[in-house]
């Protein structure tokens, strides 16, 4: 829809808050994993699974569904938690994250969880796969399907992305919507120190894309950007979403050290208490 009403925004905020609690609990239970990116992308995942995607959680292999490719697979706790809350599988299963025999592998592995669109973890490969999906989708007649791809900003250091970005432009893939998690952190520190990416949106535009930059925690802006992307013609569309790593837990927000670690029980309790205050 073009505009979100206040009730809808509140509803999405409550869902996102519950997903954040699940992420923190599952990471604490797993004792390892990536916290910052998962919490930072929770609002966008909430919007996608509860508002944007054409999908049927009870029928995950519905052929006409939109596709969502998570390229930066390390933030999979947000993918798993959002899918569980959307009804793909029981929320209780989230506590099996990273454990032997679990469907919820440390990085997404489709052999274990066939209802995800691809396996990921090694960076820089998801966008190419999404481009392939968008090309194949366009070959099907009479299906209005969108292909969404989530990539990290640090991940865009990988040259393969730019091969895919060029091809998407050449092929005029207006069914492709890429969301860049612009949180300015990567493992070794600030993205602008490790490998400056500068004005991300301009880079995409220079390669022939349309797009916009938004606050990735503002549902009105997310909604508007997805609306623009869905109605975009002739070109692929990028949404550069500025996000705050570890969004929702004040003590962790913006700190790159939370990129690749999980909270212990004390930290978990502190964070959950903070989130409980919201709802």
């Amino acid at each position, binding site marked *: 829809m073009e505009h979100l009403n206040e009730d809808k925004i509140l509803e999405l905020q409550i869902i996102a808050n519950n997903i954040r609690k699940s992420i923190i609990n599952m990471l604490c239970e797993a004792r390892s994993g990536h916290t910052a990116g998962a919490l930072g992308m929770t609002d966008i995942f909430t919007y996608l699974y509860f508002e944007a995607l054409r999908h049927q959680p009870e029928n995950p292999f519905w052929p006409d569904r939109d*596709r969502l*490719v998570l390229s930066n697979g390390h933030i999979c706790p947000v993918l798993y938690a959002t899918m569980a809350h959307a009804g793909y599988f029981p929320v209780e299963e989230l506590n099996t994250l990273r454990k032997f025999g679990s469907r919820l592998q440390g990085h997404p*592995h*489709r*052999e274990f969880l066939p209802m995800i*669109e*691809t*396996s*990921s*973890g*090694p960076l*820089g*490969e998801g966008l*190419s*796969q*999404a*481009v*392939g*999906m*968008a*090309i*194949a*989708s366009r*070959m*099907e007649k009479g299906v209005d399907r969108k292909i969404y791809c989530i990539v990290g900003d640090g991940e865009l250091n990988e*040259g*393969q992305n730019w*091969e*895919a970005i*060029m*091809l998407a432009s*050449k*092929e005029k893939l207006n069914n492709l919507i890429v969301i860049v998690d612009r949180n300015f952190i990567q493992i070794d520190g600030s993205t602008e120190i490790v490998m400056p990416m500068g004005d991300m949106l301009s880079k995409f535009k220079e390669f022939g894309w349309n797009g916009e930059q938004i606050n990735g925690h503002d549902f009105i802006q997310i909604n508007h950007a997805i609306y623009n992307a869905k109605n975009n013609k002739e070109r692929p569309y990028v949404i550069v979403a500025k996000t705050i790593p570890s969004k929702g837990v004040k003590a962790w927000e913006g700190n790159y050290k939370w990129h690749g670690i999980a909270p212990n029980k004390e930290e978990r309790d502190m964070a959950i208490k903070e989130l409980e205050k919201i709802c």
Partner: protein
Amino acid sequence: MLNPKLKLNTKVWNVDVEKKSTRLGFGEGLLIAGTQNENIVGLCADLVESTKMNLFADKFPDRFIELGIAEQNLASVASGMASMGKIPFIASYAIYSPGRNWEQIRTTICFNGEPVKIIGTHAGLSVGPDGGSHQCLEDIALTRVLPNIVVISPCDAIEAKKATIAMSKIKSPTYLRCARNDTSIITTEETPFEIGKAQIIFQPENGLASLGIIATGPSVYNALIVAKNLESEGIKVKVMNLSTIKPLDSDAIIALAKETKKIVTVEDHQISGGMGGAVAECLSQNYPTRIEFIGVKDKFGQSGNPEELAKYYEIDQEAIFRAVRKILSN
């Protein structure tokens, strides 16, 4: 003598035997497969003529995608298309695919179990004058280590054509190794081909063989010529065309080893990790057998004509003879 059951090319012994490249066999096979199945799509990274994908691209322009010089993208875009029900064939030089894009093949194709068909042309020293940078001698090792994949190295253009059609009908990711140059035609249209089945293409007229030569790719021709000469010396030899390197036809290899007790392997590839290595892994566990390996000995190639290079790197007929003498003498 040639195995009469396989209806092989009886003109293979002639000096003017027909020659054609395995890459062209692939191109012709893809055209046939593409006609049979409209889900087949072709993807290429700026090498459409040299990989012979142009035969498909010209006939089915709507099912062909040109990606520019971007082999990593090539593998992963194909994976995405396969996940939507397509059967993508991706073609490049072996040094770039599966060389440059090995991890994309591993993670986005094999790890996902997508039925992408990877064609690596210009494999081996036989590339010749282009030099060592382009002579891919590592691709069998790179691919056969991957779970879920099928690895095929056809002996001639006709087998390459049949392999291409056959691989379009299986769900597994598949690697097809092709050579650049025209090479001798060994099989005929009537020769049976089945993925995963090795064939004894040369055998004694009667009695058991005292030596087994296992060869793959166009090197099979050299193995045949050596066998023919050995036969005239009264040495009983069998030659196996091991065109599917993975899954390995262990039963056939073990049976050959049990009969001959001595094996020589022949390939235009590094010895490390190659077809001979696969044979050795199989036999050392099941029926330990003396093996001599013909292949490149931990070196890179260089410019030269294919014959010069085969001689220098000791993968030519003379080198096979020497290996045979050595293994028969102890």
